[in-house]
Every structure is written in structure tokens, then in C-alpha cells.
């Protein structure tokens, strides 16, 4: 075999190796963001499960807040139904649920016996933690999506991505209620 042939074979072999490596990298990144999405689902589901318990506990102590509680339950049911309908719809439904919950928290401020109840405090801690976990899993998901999308767009991996049909992933943005309210000016 002539030296040229050998060199060509070696180069070809290296290219194939690189292709395999690039494909595997993309698969790994894609699985990462899919796993991260599943993690968000776990936390969202945990929140749905906590809400009926919370509503019952609050109902026992408050007489005039039936409307707020009703809104929370409705928002939760809507969010549950939105589960299969795509990232954007789900994000919107979950934002509304977060809003309803924080309005409930504001209302609860007026009931000191409720705030001292052990059961309520434990639930409160679970709920806060779940809200935090939703936030963190969402941010982790967005980070993995960022890594995946960057890798797909960068040369030379974008060739492999095109050939094997890796699609860009969507970010999951929850609108923060607090961010939308106007800042208060105090003199």
C-alpha cells in the first residue's frame, strides 16, 4: 500500500471517530435536558399534591377567604390539565398557579392562629421548598437547554446535528409575579 493510501485511511478513521464522538455528545446533552425536564415535572406534581392539603388547613382557620381558596384550587386544576400541552402552555398555567398561591400567602398574614399552627408551618415549609425546587429545576433545565442549543449551533457539530436531525429545545420561562408589579415609591 502506498503511503498516501495509508494516510487517507488514517484520516478517514479519525474523522469517523470524531463523528461518533460528536453524535454521542449531542445525545448526552439531549438526554440531560430531557432528564432536567422530567425533574421539573416531578416538582410541579409535588406542588399539585400539596395544594389540597393546604387549602383544607387554611379553610379550617379562615372564614372569609373562600374566594381566594377557590381560585387556588381552580388554578391548580388548570395547571394539571395543561400538563401535556407543550412547554409554553404549561409555563403559563404554572405562572398563574404561582400567582394564586402568593395571593393566598398575603391573605393568610391576617390570621395569627393559623400562622402558629404546627401543621400549617410544616406545610408552609414544604410549599416554599417546592416552589424553590421548581425554580431551581427550571433554571437547571434552561442551563442544559442552553448547552444543547449552543452545541447544535456551533461548527462543526452543527453538521452532525443537521444530519441526524437534532432540534433546538425550548426554554421554560415562568413569569415572576413580583417582577411584573410596579415598584412602590415612598417619600
Amino acid at each position: 500500500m502506498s503511503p498516501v493510501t495509508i494516510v487517507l485511511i488514517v484520516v478517514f478513521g479519525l474523522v469517523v471517530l470524531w463523528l461518533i464522538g460528536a453524535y454521542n455528545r449531542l445525545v448526552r446533552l439531549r438526554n440531560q435536558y430531557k432528564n432536567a425536564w422530567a425533574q421539573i415535572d416531578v416538582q410541579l406534581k409535588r406542588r399539585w399534591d400539596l395544594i389540597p392539603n393546604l387549602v383544607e388547613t387554611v379553610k379550617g382557620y379562615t372564614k372569609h377567604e373562600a374566594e381566594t381558596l377557590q381560585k387556588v384550587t381552580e388554578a391548580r386544576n388548570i395547571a394539571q390539565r395543561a400538563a401535556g400541552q407543550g412547554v409554553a402552555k404549561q409555563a403559563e398555567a404554572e405562572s398563574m398557579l404561582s400567582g394564586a398561591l402568593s395571593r393566598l400567602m398575603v391573605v393568610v398574614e391576617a390570621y395569627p392562629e393559623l400562622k402558629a399552627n404546627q401543621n400549617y408551618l410544616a406545610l408552609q415549609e414544604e410549599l416554599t421548598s417546592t416552589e424553590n425546587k421548581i425554580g431551581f429545576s427550571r433554571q437547571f433545565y434552561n442551563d442544559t437547554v442552553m448547552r444543547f442549543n449552543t452545541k447544535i449551533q456551533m461548527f462543526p457539530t452543527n453538521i452532525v446535528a443537521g444530519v441526524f436531525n437534532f432540534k433546538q429545545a425550548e426554554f421554560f420561562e415562568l413569569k415572576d409575579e413580583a417582577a411584573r408589579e410596579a415598584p412602590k415609591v415612598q417619600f
Partner: protein
Amino acid sequence: MWEAIARNRRKSFVLISVMGAFMIGAGMLIAEAIWPGAYMAGGVVAIVLWAILSLTSFYGGDTVFLASAGARKIQKNDHPTLYNIVEEMCIAAGISKMPKIYIIDDNRPNAFAVGRDPEHASVAVTAGLLNRLNRDEVQGVVAHELAHIRNRDTLYVMVAAIMVGVIALMADVFLRYAWLTGGRHRSRRGKGGNQAQAVLLIIAILFAILGPIAVQLLYFALSRRREYLADACGALFTRYPEGLASALQKISANPGLKEKKNRVMSPMYIVNPLQTAAFAAGGLGSTHPPTKDRIRILRSMAGASLADYEAAFARSTNQSVVPKSALETSRAVGIRPPWRDEKHKKPEPDARQKARQTADLLWKLNKYVFIACACGTRLKLPPSFKLSKVTCPRCGRVHDVPRGAQAKA
């Protein structure tokens, strides 16, 4: 951050190999110096010791350290807030398996993490940390520790710590042995053999003296960058650098531990427990960067991403610390509001409740028996309490002491 992870793995591997080479060399030299011709045996003994050492430090190192620090393992029910905080940070850090959580019975705030990889990791915090820090601050500390675990710092520091400890031990043993027996063996040989032996002995002694020093220096120089990187990752995970900054401030006011100062293990803590306010850390012989610098960098961050930390670090020290690959894929991330803000009014237990919760937990872990009396008092009996009945000091009711029962909190 794969560069940092790969680097730690590589360095651990290199350290173990270098350690192996050093031990084999030292073993051969020492054996030759004492019994000429026995260098092979010395080499073999050294290899066996090295294998045992590497395996023990790799698989058992964290258990040893946790036990020596007096750490007690807790479950979710024991302290749901701490468990939730660790769980939140695991999600933020992308660690799929929860590390084991431990509490140390010490009133001074501090924390550390051990573990060879995220699947076999442990996080320990002191009771003082739980009592004095609010939720954001504990979250920052836990995030910093999980960053160490994820970046495999804990693997490298564990390997290095055990190596340092063992080299020091070997050097000590050898020096003592050589001192005691060198004279006797030398007198048995002829004149010619004497000089060669003396030279070998001197080289062996040099190894024994310089080895520990070199490894210590290596150990110190490499720890500081890791602390900065862990701070950066911690700020990124929590999206709230101020939490970690104020936690560091509270901890550095009084980080020491009441147990014997353990020099080898001190780098593992979030703030070096051997450093007092008077003796500023940050010199050549220090394993942690100066806490003031760490706080200042965290507080001057414009956002919460790694790029923001890098910018703040460069402003403060004109150097770079975050690896390039991590900067490339870092997106702009804003700082979130603190957990306890007036608008959302999430309740935090006050200091007394927290102290009571931690104290109860520690009693329970030490197998105290809890009895709830109908008058509202909770009786807490030490394990050495042998009587079968106890009277409530407040109302006089008599209770049966459950025999061998687990504590009912």
C-alpha cells in the same frame, strides 16, 4: 465546568501515581540502606502498602473523616428544612442522588463536604450553623459544598489529605527507626560497604524529611483556586451571592472547632477552622483564600452567572479563575430576591425555635428518650436513665419509661 472536573480527576490520579512512585523509591532506598540487597523486598512492601493506602483512602476516607469530626447522620424527618435545602441545591447543581446529611454537635458555625463523586457524597453542618444562619445563608453554604462535590474537589482533597497524613507518618516512623538502628547495622559491614550505605541512608532521610513538606506545599497551593470556583458555582446555583457572602461573614467571625485542631483535615471546611480573626489567612501556607476577599468578590457581582463572578474576580485581583469552557456556555442570569422579603412574607422560625429544634435533634440522635406529658411538658431522658417510671416535674403525673424504644420527638 468539565475542565475543573477533569482536572481534579487527573490530578488525583497523578497524585496517587506519584505517591506510588515515591513510596516504591523510598521503600527500596530504606530497605537497601538498612539491609543491603533487600531493595526488591522493600519495593514489594511499598507497593502493597500503596495499594492498601489508595484503596482505603478512596473507599473509606469519608467515613473516617466524618467519624473523626463527630458527625451524626440525619433523615428528612429530623430536620426537614435542612433536608429541603440540600434537595433544592442538588436540583440546582444537577446532582441526581441526594448526599447523606450529617450534623455536628458544635456551637460554632462551619460546614464541609466529603465524597469521591456525587453518588457517594456527604455533607455535614454544625449545629451552630443551623442556629445562626437564615435560610438563604444555609442555602449558600450548602450550594458551596455541593459545588465542591460536583467539581470533584472532595475527591482530590481526600486523596491528598490521606497521602499527606501517611507520608508524615512514614517519615516519622522511618526517622525513628533509622536513628535507633542505623548505627548497629553499619558496624557489621566492612569498610568499603560503609560509605555506600551511609550515602543511601542520607538520601533516605532526605526523602523522609522533604517529602511531607513538598506534599504540604502542593496541597496548600492548589486548594485556594478550588475555593473560589466553589464560591462561583455556589452563587450560580442559588442565584443569590449575598446569601453565601453573609454566611461567610457570620462563619468567619468564629469558625473554630472545640475538638483538637486537626491540621490535615482543616482544608475541607468552608472556612478554615484553624484561622482566627487575628491570624489572617491567605499566605503561602494557607488552604483557604482570605475570607474578606471572598466576601468582597461575591458582593461585587453584577449578576449571578459564572461570567459575573469572573468579572468580579478580575476587578478584585486582576487574575482569572473560571475555566474558559464554563464561561462560553454561561448565559446571563439575574440575582433573585432574598427569601425573606417583606412583600411575600414567608415565615422563618426565630432564633429560639431554631435553637430548640437543633438541640432536640441532637438529643434524639444521642438516643435520648422523649416523653410527652399531658400538661404540655416534654420530658427528655438520657440513655443512662435506668428507672422504669418518671414523674413529670411540672404536674406530677407518673410516666412509664419505654424500654429500648426509639426516641419519640
